């Protein structure tokens, strides 16, 4: 099952299971159904359970919050993470605080799905990630699944969670295939996933950069170096323990942020490691270049982390040598993508 189908599957299961669940957002009932993730839901479940909205992110988020307060479980879908900037007031000032302000009497079981764009000239305004901006705000949960299996399980958990969940998908993952159970299952928030075991270095990825990390791990095998790759998965709450255990073993850490680094989640991870745990370790961050994302292909390419960058840096950290250039690896998700969005 593909990542997109896994989202569709989770949504259908929950629409069936709970009559209070509904899906709304720009284009969710259109012929493309948000990359297939909401395809034909309006036909299967009716226009009350899946409907299009005007282009007004602030108020539609408010509508979702209001419906959630009233006991519904809305899923609000955004074509791009960037558009959430229009809804920050509702997310930061309202959704995240209502449970607290009411001292527990109200809650906001709202899922906000946001898709990170990338590649083939998305440009500065259709490519932002902004994970850590949401992680900064108490009262929100932030989830960024990478695999079809995880996206389905965490989406079901998100829908059943009683809090606002920022559910972060990645455009480049929608077509990826994986083993996904047909039925209902949940994946607990606050748990990362160890994708490969290794003792030379710990490489932490999140969202799409997990793909880069896995590819980097493969490159490193050429040099017989074994990387332990962790998919962060849950951005808030954060599963610091898995990283602690891994870094205690490897003594080396690279965090590949699917975002700009400054004040990012990788900084948070490093700080927690340093503040609390007396581990001696070496660490590097890789992330988006600290510029807006350029449109033209060659610049866009160098804007992003890559398996080669990760592998090279890993090699240098482990061996203290600079004498290796890994072979070029093809990131099929990126290279096969021919737009438009």
């Amino acid at each position, binding site marked *: 099952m593909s990542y997109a189908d896994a989202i569709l599957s989770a949504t259908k299961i929950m629409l069936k299971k709970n009559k*209070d669940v*509904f899906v709304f957002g720009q284009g969710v009932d259109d012929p493309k159904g948000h990359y297939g993730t909401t395809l034909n839901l309006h036909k299967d479940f009716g226009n*009350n359970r899946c409907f299009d*909205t*005007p282009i*007004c992110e*602030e*108020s*539609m*988020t*408010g*509508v*979702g*919050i*209001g*419906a*959630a*307060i*009233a*006991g*519904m479980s*809305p899923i609000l879908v955004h074509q791009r993470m960037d558009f959430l900037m229009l809804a920050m*007031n*509702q997310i930061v*000032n*309202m959704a995240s605080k*209502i*449970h*607290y*302000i*009411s*001292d*527990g*009497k*109200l*809650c906001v079981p709202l899922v906000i799905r946001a898709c990170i764009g990338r590649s083939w000239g998305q440009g500065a305004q259709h490519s932002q990630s902004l994970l850590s901006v949401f992680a900064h705000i*108490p*009262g929100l*949960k932030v989830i960024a699944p990478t695999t079809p299996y995880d996206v389905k399980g965490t989406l079901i958990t998100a829908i059943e969670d*009683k*809090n606002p969940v920022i559910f972060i998908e990645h455009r480049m993952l929608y077509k990826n295939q994986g083993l996904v159970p047909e039925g209902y299952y949940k994946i607990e928030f606050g748990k990362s996933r160890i994708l490969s075991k290794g003792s030379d270095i710990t490489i932490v990825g999140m969202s799409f950069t997990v793909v880069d990390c896995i590819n980097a791990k493969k490159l490193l095998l050429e040099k017989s170096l074994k990387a332990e790759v962790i998919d962060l998965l849950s951005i808030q709450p954060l599963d610091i323990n898995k990283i602690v255990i891994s870094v205690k073993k490897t003594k080396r850490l690279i965090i590949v942020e699917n975002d700009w680094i400054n004040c990012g989640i990788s900084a948070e991870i490093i700080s927690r490691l340093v503040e609390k745990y007396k581990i001696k370790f070496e660490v590097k961050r890789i992330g988006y270049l600290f510029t807006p994302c350029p449109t033209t292909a060659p610049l866009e390419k160098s804007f992003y982390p890559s398996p080669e960058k990760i592998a090279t840096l890993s090699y240098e950290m482990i061996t203290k040598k600079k004498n290796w250039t890994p072979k070029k690896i093809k990131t099929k998700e990126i290279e096969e993508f021919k737009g438009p969005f």
Partner: protein
Amino acid sequence: MTIKKFNYAKAYYLFKKIRSTEEKIIEIYESDVIKSPVHLSLGQESIAVGIALASNKKKDIVFSNYRSHAHFIAHGGDYKKMWAELFGKESGLSSGKAGSMHLGDLDINFIFTSAIVGSAISEAVGYALALKLKKLNSRVICYHGEGAMDQGTFWESLNFSALKKLPILFVCENNHLAIYSEQKKRMKTLNICKKVESFGVRSIKIEDNSTKNIFKYAHKALQGIGKNSQPVFLEINTYREVDHVGTNYDFELGYRKKDKQQLLKNLNELNYLKEKTKNFLQVEKKISKEISDALNYSYKSNFPKIKHIESNVTKE
């Protein structure tokens, strides 16, 4: 669909209770037991009273904003807990976490309010959507200032409520001021109802503060909303007596003149309701007692325990 009659005694009780509450707040504010900003409703009481009397306390849902004392009291929120909340006490509506700007009481479906101008309007609309999806025949009452209509979200929300035919009554309390900024400094056209109509929502303008009038229009509007599932918009002219925030008059600031007529009009309305209330003395006694009970309760209550600060950030 039953036609409610306007109940003068109830109206007097609520109007007087709101006014006395605000006056009590003014009286004790100096002593700094209410360590928090308050936005008083003095001058705007008739709106809350008229609307509340027209509404169905059991079923209707109320959204308001930081200026909500009048609404809260008129709609019958827990009075003691309200005071305790102002005092920041454990026994308050939100154990003191909320304060005056965020009153709420789910027993009367009074949703905890927001202090960000305009930000609860889309939520009120979302709640109305939920009512419709759940096929409940309640209605949402959404109070807001004319200042909130400066915000684009008002127009987005209005459009959506009309598009989806939602059961919601917008109540615009037009006091022509946002803090110290006059309406005409912020809006090119002052005919608010015309704008609202052009978005496809029926609108009614009420020029004065007759509680009965407000009741009548609101009652009819609410019945229509229930029957047709269509939003309705009320604009009600009103007058803010004191400063935007805090407990003083603000005329000496010079940005507006004291409008004696307006001040009188509101007192006249109160007196008119009083005259129509046979047992007004009993009513007044009842209010006095409620106030002193609530104050006692609040003074005696404890502050929340420090560790409570970390509870209810997220729901398990």
